[in-house]
């Protein structure tokens, strides 16, 4: 555990869940606004549990190459570099820069 940094503890938990083989639709990238909003809407309507968010958003613990670009949290508009945080209101999670998800956008 990371009693001195709760956010890092959550990151570690997420890393373990992803490494454990959580099944997600990570190949279903939100290529247009309609798909993006469908994913966001599904997360909003969900139970809000961590694994549910990860599954619906299609999290991976590595960048996903798509449309000639490595889609990673570190280049995503919702990623705060210094906090190491995804600020998409529906996710609102501590994340690592090398991770990725379907609602990546720049």
């Amino acid at each position, binding site marked *: 555990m990371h009693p001195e940094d709760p956010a890092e503890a959550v990151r570690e938990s997420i890393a373990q869940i992803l490494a454990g083989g959580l099944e997600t639709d990570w190949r279903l990238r939100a290529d247009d606004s309609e798909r993006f909003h469908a994913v966001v809407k599904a997360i909003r309507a969900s139970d809000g549990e961590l694994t549910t968010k990860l599954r619906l958003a299609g999290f991976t613990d590595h960048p996903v190459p798509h449309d000639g670009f490595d889609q990673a949290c570190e280049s995503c*508009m919702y990623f705060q570099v210094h906090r190491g945080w995804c600020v998409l209101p529906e996710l609102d999670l501590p994340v690592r820069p090398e991770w990725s998800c379907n609602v990546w956008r720049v």
Partner: protein
Amino acid sequence: MANLLWLQGGACSGNTMSFLNAEEPSACDLVTDFGINILWHPSLGMELGDNLIQLLDDCVSGRTSLDILVFEGTIVNAPNGTGEWNRFAGRPMKDWVKDLSAAAGYVVAIGDCAAWGGIPATAPNPTDSEGLQYLKRRRGGFLGPSFSSKAGLPVINVPGCPAHPDWVTQILVAVATGRGDEITLDDLQRPKTFFTSFTQTGCTRNMHFAYKVSATEFGQRRGCLFYDLGCRGPMTHSPCNRILWNRQSSKTRAGMPCIGCTEPEFPFFDLAPGSVFKTQTVMGVPRDLPDGVEKNGYMKMTVAAKAASPAWAEEDIFVI
């Protein structure tokens, strides 16, 4: 003394409200300091019925010199091109506009609707509306592409929904005081002095734009509104963050995305569900990029800016 006539077509009166709130100069200043004689205005004119028709007829015939014709709202052509859905002073408004434009020294379109059709001309455009010399971005409109007023200028477009009060009064003063030939127009016939810079120019969120920090909710003081909330500031020509609204603020300063209301395509995406206040994306990249920016350059800039962003860019720096 310059005679000014202001008429409204398919309009909500928003530009009249804006005009009456002008401060530099004010609507009263136009009369007292700049020699503008307001022949008639929908909210100020005294004449009614036959007296109004006589006033308009005198402008058309030349008995009264019509120096400036200001038009607010769309030209309504429905039904079937007759314009009968917008009758005024005994005949379709569009017939008055045709005759008065031919007699006017200058013709000024105030607001989006008069300039290029605005919201009424959005598909399916039930009133068959168009602007004076444009329908959206297509030149032509009601008066046709070759129209020029007696002073030799095409319609002067002062767009906006509404136009900022001072854009209106400053252009009217320029025309009324004989400096109309100093007004240079862009390719959409907007005065360059107002419509060359971008809404983003002077935006208090420019640092967040540069470091790619996104606002995710309305009213949030931290973050740029372009990335997620559909702000059109980087590709909209207006001085909204240079000539402030009510002398103190602007949409983007207040946490409200620019809706691009000085551009002919407004309202964008025909107000399709999900398109308002939502940045439209293709493969995760904004469909409309900042003016002049290519996709590859945008992607590279994003990666570099994210990597270089300082910690304070993620904080709320507007501390009360």
